[in-house]
């Protein structure tokens, strides 16, 4: 009996998985072959993915358009033949194959244990994988104190960015006096370039719910919230389905499984503010206010949501918990490095060949992640740097590629672990422009409460804009460094405290790029529009006249059907010719 499984996470759907699914449904109607959906297995770069499961063999096909779906149906499902050209990964009798074999083989999947395997909308499939057995163990074989000790012993540290030891955090909230306490799951995932939490919520929502219910037992709370960003409609939908199913099975609600524990979870949708990922701002947002961070202390374990003791953890942190309870703290602590135990999920994106999700033991080197799992740089270009930690993080140059990725070593480079977004940059990326990009982001997202964060970042942004326009002043670098120090010192929350990091880290490793912009008015990466020249490639130009018609200053000349020419003296470098050309004939350098 064969079963077809279509990857229907946001990545699959945006690559067209729905049409392939519809085609397979039509074809499989009336046949013995089963058809179901799953979340994201992490190979986003090969979406849409379709897997065929049969006795002793699993085959995942990549880039399955409806046309390919029909052919796979005819040749593989009906004909029993492997369509080897399209196989992304396969397992047959313990033997792995397929072009992306390495992508999965180099991983250690704990958080992603069910992602891309089970149907996220079926609680039964989660239970078949051992789901909710950890909860039973916690409810009937362990005391809350033992649960906390177990999590402490596992060495699990928060995956939301700061890396605070989870067991310790739970013990604070548990010890805090009061009968009403809250449990919060931070699913705001605002770092641009990070999509681990989205994938987990879309692919295995019950793992997060189970982790939360276990935490509720350990801490002693009856009310839970999941704060999910509104840009993740599919995650919210699947969470709602999962919540209803868990209530139906008695895992949520009053007197859970007859244990006496009462606990339920509500979903709160974010409304588009990055700072609401910061936990105290997140509480303000759940309370219906402007999402402004609050002064600490008091810490959330004392006074959090609605001024009551609150424990907040990240999605991935909770998703680790059931595995730790089931397999034991020692098994978890055996993975990773001395001070960073277990695994971490990374979102590989940017100029990397295999962009997707990968979960690896802590301490794997950047090179192994980017070159090994990620398959190197797209289009065979040169690996320049990797951006980690989003707007609070920094850029690590390729020369430090042997750095182990963990909570000790990444901060030494000036970047941070962050939530796990890894944006890979190649030689076409300008480092000043990247710093400007992040400063623009934090400038926009600053809630406005602290003067240095609000105005200081604006002054830094202005300096960076000057530099990328080729109008930088010699003293701008000192100005940036001076402002950076002050903003770090005088900001209330980590948004401001870390906002200068992208500038400081690029200044540390790529200072010469700043200097070339300022002194030579040149962008070495050929990326800053104001500092490059536009040309037309005579080999590609078809003389369609579109660029000439789009040029606002009439700098392009040429007859229809003949190669066009850009008058660089007239050109204002608006880039319209480049974006309008249908033949990639406009070059900038």
């Amino acid at each position: 009996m064969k079963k077809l499984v279509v990857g229907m996470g946001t990545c699959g759907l945006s690559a067209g998985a729905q049409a392939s699914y519809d085609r397979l449904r039509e074809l499989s109607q009336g046949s013995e072959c089963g058809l179901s959906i799953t979340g994201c297995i992490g190979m986003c770069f090969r979406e849409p993915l379709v897997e065929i499961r049969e006795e002793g063999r699993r085959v995942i096909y990549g880039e399955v358009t409806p046309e390919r779906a029909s052919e796979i149906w005819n040749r593989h499902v009906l004909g029993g033949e492997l369509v080897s050209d399209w196989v992304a990964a396969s397992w047959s009798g313990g033997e792995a194959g397929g072009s992306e074999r390495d992508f999965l083989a180099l991983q250690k999947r704990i958080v992603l244990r069910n992602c891309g395997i089970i149907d996220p909308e079926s609680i039964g499939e989660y239970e078949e994988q051992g789901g909710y057995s950890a909860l039973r163990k916690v409810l009937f074989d362990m005391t809350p104190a033992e649960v906390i000790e177990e999590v402490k012993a596992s060495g699990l540290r928060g995956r939301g960015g700061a890396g605070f030891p989870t067991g310790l955090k739970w013990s604070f909230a548990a010890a805090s006096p009061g009968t009403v306490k809250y449990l919060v799951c931070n699913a705001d995932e605002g770092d641009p370039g990070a999509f681990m939490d989205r994938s987990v919520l879309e692919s295995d929502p019950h793992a997060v719910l189970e982790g939360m219910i276990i935490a509720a037992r350990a801490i002693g709370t009856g009310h839970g919230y999941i704060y999910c960003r509104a840009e993740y409609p599919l995650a919210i939908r699947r969470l709602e389905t999962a919540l209803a199913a868990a209530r139906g099975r008695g895992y949520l609600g009053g007197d859970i499984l007859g244990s006496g524990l009462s606990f339920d979870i509500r979903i709160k949708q974010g409304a588009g503010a990055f700072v609401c990922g910061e936990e105290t701002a997140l509480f303000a947002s759940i309370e219906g206010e402007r999402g402004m961070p609050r002064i600490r202390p008091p810490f959330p374990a004392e006074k959090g949501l609605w001024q009551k003791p609150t424990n907040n953890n990240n999605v991935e942190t909770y998703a680790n918990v059931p595995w730790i309870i089931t397999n034991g703290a020692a098994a978890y602590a055996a993975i990773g490095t001395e001070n960073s135990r277990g695994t971490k999920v990374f979102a590989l994106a940017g100029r990397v060949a295999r962009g997707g999700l990968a979960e690896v033991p802590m301490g794997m080197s950047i090179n192994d992640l980017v070159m090994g799992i990620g398959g190197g740089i797209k289009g065979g270009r040169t690996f320049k740097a990797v951006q980690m930690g989003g707007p609070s993080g920094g850029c690590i140059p390729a020369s430090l590629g042997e750095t182990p990725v963990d909570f000790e070593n990444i901060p030494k480079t000036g970047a941070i672990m962050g939530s796990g977004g890894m944006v890979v940059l190649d030689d076409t990326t300008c480092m000043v422009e990247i710093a400007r990009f992040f400063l623009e982001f934090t400038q926009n997202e600053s809630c406005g409460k602290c003067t240095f964060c609000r105005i200081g970042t604006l002054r830094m942004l202005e300096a960076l804009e000057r530099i990328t326009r080729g109008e930088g002043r010699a003293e701008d670098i000192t100005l940036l460094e001076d402002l950076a120090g002050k903003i770090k010192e005088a900001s209330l929350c980590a948004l401001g405290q870390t906002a200068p990091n992208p500038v400081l880290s690029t200044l540390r490793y790529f200072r010469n790029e700043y200097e070339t912009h300022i002194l030579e008015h040149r962008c070495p990466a050929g990326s800053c529009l104001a500092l490059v020249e536009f040309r037309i490639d005579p080999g590609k130009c078809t003389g369609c006249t579109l660029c000439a018609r789009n040029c606002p200053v009439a700098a392009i000349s040429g007859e229809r059907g003949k190669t066009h020419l850009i008058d660089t003296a007239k050109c204002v470098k608006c880039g319209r010719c480049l974006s309008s050309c249908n033949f990639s004939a406009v070059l900038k350098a």
Partner: protein
Amino acid sequence: MEETFTYRLWRYDGAQGELIPLLQSAQEHFGYIPRRAIKYISAVTGIPEAAIYGVITFYSQFRLQPMGRFVIRVCDGTACHVSSSRMLIDAIQDELSIEVGGTTADGLFTLTTVACLGCCSLAPVMMIGDETHGRLTPASVRRILKDVRRKAAEAPSESPKPACGVNP
């Protein structure tokens, strides 16, 4: 989450933290948050209009102006940015003759940007309504816009699909 705005208002029992869900359902209902919705919410909840306005302007999801039938959300997150999302924005601005934040004269499109749609591996990415499009180029964006425009002309009565972030 699927209740209508009026039902939510009517059901309001003074529970804390309801303001943002109320605003979200108002925006879903009207397509934006009209002045009168602020008045209704203020009257029912007792929260001053000025405070409600303060919350609306804090969150980028909320809009005080009507939006086009199709909201285009171009991702300008890190991954998309280094994959030339700026060129997509330029192409759309050029194709539709509007700036970011603007709405076309025929009320068909509103152009916005967003920092990361979580599909970074398909960068550069944009959403039109609730459909995500990945691996874009300026040329493919223009083609998609023309397609949407043609389909809209063929089926003018079909109600617009709400954009994802607006749809609770």
